[in-house]
């Protein structure tokens, strides 16, 4: 599976046009990854290893930011195949690092097809779910 470089580039362009996000470090160490955002949150993440393979365990490295610069928390990460309505056979665990950084271990996409990743974030009382789709071939 390839990272969507084009999508990433366009997200960057959008984000840097928007000064409020400027403090959010998007580079997770490899100069590549995905960015998803809503009105309040921006979440950058990349897989480790860089290539997600069907049936192989992988981790996701996250950086969670808020528009208001309030500290935000990664509450839960899960994935399912929306077409077949089944989840992963594995339950990922979240490890918090410094500065809104997180490491999520124990993800396995066990079938080819569309996987929908849900990312639950919270800042204070407000929580929100951000989504990202992966197509595995």
């Amino acid at each position, binding site marked *: 599976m390839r990272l969507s470089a084009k999508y990433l580039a366009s997200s960057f362009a959008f984000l840097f046009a928007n000064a409020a996000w400027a403090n959010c470090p998007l580079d997770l160490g490899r100069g590549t990854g995905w960015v998803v955002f809503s009105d309040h949150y921006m979440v950058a993440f990349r897989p480790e290893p860089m290539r997600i393979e*069907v*049936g192989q*365990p992988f981790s996701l490295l996250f950086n969670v930011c808020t528009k208001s610069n309030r500290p935000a928390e990664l509450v839960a990460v899960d994935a399912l*195949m*929306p*077409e*077949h*309505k*089944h*989840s*992963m*056979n*594995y*339950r*990922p*665990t979240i490890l918090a690092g410094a500065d809104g950084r997180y490491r999520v*271990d*124990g993800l*396995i996409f*066990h*079938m*080819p*097809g569309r996987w929908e990743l849900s990312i639950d974030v919270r800042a204070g009382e407000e929580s929100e779910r951000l989504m990202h789709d992966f197509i595995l*071939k």
Partner: protein
Amino acid sequence: MRGLLLLVLAAWAPPAAAQQLLDWSPDEVRAVGRHGPWPPPPVRDPSNRVSGTPAGIALGEHLFNDPRLSADGLMSCATCHQAGRDWSDGRAKGFGTVDLDRRTPSLWNVGYAHWFGWDGAGDSLWAQTIRPIVDPREMGGNAQRVAGLLRHDKDLACGYQRAFGGKAGDDDELLLVDAAKAMAAFQATLVSPRTRFDAFRDALVAGDRAAVARYPLSEQRGLKLFVGSGNCDTCHFGPRFTNGEFGDVGIAFFVRPGEVDTGRLGGLARLAGSPFNLLGRYNDDVSGANAARTRHVQRLHANFGEFRVPSLRQVGRAAAYMHDGSIATLEDVVRHYSEVNPDRLHSDGTPLVRPLGLSPQERTDLVAFLRSLDADPPPRPAPPPLCP
């Protein structure tokens, strides 16, 4: 002159090879490509310190064939996993000291798996190897018996020292685990040969049309169904034709009236209760990285009645099919997928398995493709003596 004429005629004849080729879209080529290359690189299991070592493999092969591991001294692993029967027993269900409820799986390519047994109760090949030794329905042995052999049998003691770099100690359970690790090292060398399918797959990926065309049309059509509308490769994925996980394809889970085989659900309970799982003290990988699946696996309602997706390499050579041997032939398996009862397969979304309603020709094609995953293995020489 005659030679020249033939050449000219040959040039005129429509190229027979070109007719033997279906159109393969880039997506299909990629999907077919994922089922190789074959064979994969040799196995190195970090949880097993003798994995891939010649001395470990040699000791393991001797232990695998040694009936003294069993209570009555009559049954070895090779009683049920016979080299001449594709490492199975030629029966629909296993038979130990009593009739077993499940079929004896072939051990071809078992080293590449990550869950073992039909219910995945084992998370390493060596942990799975301990089960039949101590199960009273199978070999009925115990740690003491195995440890005694490794200490006192001249050849095995010598083989142990060569494999593990020290004399067999006095911890029986540790020696049982070491014996299982040597047997796992041996089993991981059982890699099935390349097949007609592999030649086709490599040629298709390389764009070698002449070589591609050597794969008969019926098999090509069957393969197209397999990666296309049949949806087979969502589960039978990758070079071994299994994603290594679990599924329910509508096989009855009643063993006897009133008694069910819960499959994966029970397997997960046994995994959690085993002192030999990868989270326990016998995992040789101090980093623990290889225990990711065991650490993160979760029990789901859907696990009830799920069984491991079997590899399809050498599938045509099996004596019966499914975890309980309830389907006799490959033709019947394909008919099952064609006519499976959708009510039996509860699914909220688009079901992964649904009645395909295949025509007789399509069923023939699918079987022809499945048979192209078989190849005759070369004859196996008897293992050389351990310590001549």
